[in-house]
């Protein structure tokens, strides 16, 4: 799962995803992009995998880890952004 964030003035102007995975993984990453476009990095930081799963209308127990993947991808991306802007 790859997440690309376009950030200006601490706002997520645009976001794209690339995912190789099952339907739930693709859906989770896609839903994530819908949820974070246009919000601040601060708000995005608070997003949980539960929120993604809920937005999808719930996920079967065996597919919950797909929502974790999406949340982790987001947090990794924001972490990456912070490192780059600091350095």
């Amino acid at each position: 799962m790859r997440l690309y964030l376009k950030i200006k003035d601490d706002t997520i102007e645009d976001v794209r995803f690339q995912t190789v995975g099952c339907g739930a993984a693709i859906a989770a990453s896609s839903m994530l992009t819908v949820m974070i476009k246009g919000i601040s990095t601060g708000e995005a930081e608070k997003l949980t995998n539960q929120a993604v799963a809920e937005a999808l209308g719930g996920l079967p127990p065996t597919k919950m880890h797909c929502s974790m993947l999406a949340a982790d991808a987001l947090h990794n991306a924001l972490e990456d952004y912070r490192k780059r802007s600091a350095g």
Partner: protein
Amino acid sequence: MAERTIYMDHAATTPVHPKVLEAMLPYFSEKYGNPSSIYSLAQEASKAVDDSRETVANILGCRANEVIFTSGGSESDNTALKGVALACRQWGNHVITSSIEHHAVLHTCQYLENFGFEITYLPVDSYGLVNPSEVEKAITDRTTMVSIMLANNEVGTIEPISEISKVVRAREKRLGRSIVFHTDAVQGAGALDLNVDQLGIDLLSLSSHKFYGPKGVGVLYLRRGTPFMPQQSGGSQERYRRAGTENVPGIVGTATALKLAVEHMKSNNAHCRKLRDRLVTEIPKRIPNVRLNGHPSLSLPNNANFSFEFVEGESILLGLDLVGVAASSGSACTSASLEPSHVLLAMGVPPEIAHGSLRLTVGIYNSAEDIEYVLTVLPGIVERLRALSPLTSSSS
């Protein structure tokens, strides 16, 4: 959602043939007697079970009393392995099987390891073939049983059972005692010859719902004289080898289905092979970066297993389902264990490639139109997933 299902998952299960259903129906509410009871109503049911047993025995080329009816392929496999390994314990504790068996065999072998059994899981080549000389090399003076499947459910590879049998019999002579040979023939029924002497086996498992019979019933062939400990205790059914009131409608259905399957084997195989071959020829033409899994010729006539690079199998299945096509995959995401297909991995297929696998298994009710439809819809599904995938090379 599409209106009609184009069913391409016959290795998973098959619809019950109308003649099979017709044969079964009287035994639900009319001739419903318990075959163990004395009165006429029950004796009708008992006769139906006897006749079914004869039918199956004729097909397998064995005696009627060597046929045991079970609740399906999994029970047959469990009973075969546990029943024989435990009975032969005094002679040894070593069982040889292959790394591509169905979980009903593999997990039963793993279960036996808890009781001091040592299991050799033989490797296979890149086509999924077991090498008879590997079986030979693995036999020790502690070996009591060998279990190798007749044909693999995922990639269709047909195993050299007769050759393996020769090797086992030769070693038996040198050992001065028997080594019991079981084959899981669940996927081979209806496509391959099941004569137990030709195959050279002592036990054989069948599952009715794989050959247009009902679910919940199967067969275990047990050669007379084979050491065996019954695994389901209770009444005297199946000559004390497998207790439980007989599933009369299921048993009647099994015999009817097997008879039909064997009678039409040649034409069914030709029909399936033609459809399967069209898939195998056309899909690589229409979709790049695809490989075929399995043996080009030593394969079940209805099985086509592909791996599509850069995408994952379950998402292909969902895409197919949205347009009315039912298929399956060896991808990790489709298994409850989240492990990719052990069969593909054993064949040396890299995990990422196993991840993108699609299994299409055709059946007697599929038509040329069904195949053309699949050929029309599949490229778009794979393309769309590849566009979403971070693995697709941008240099194409």
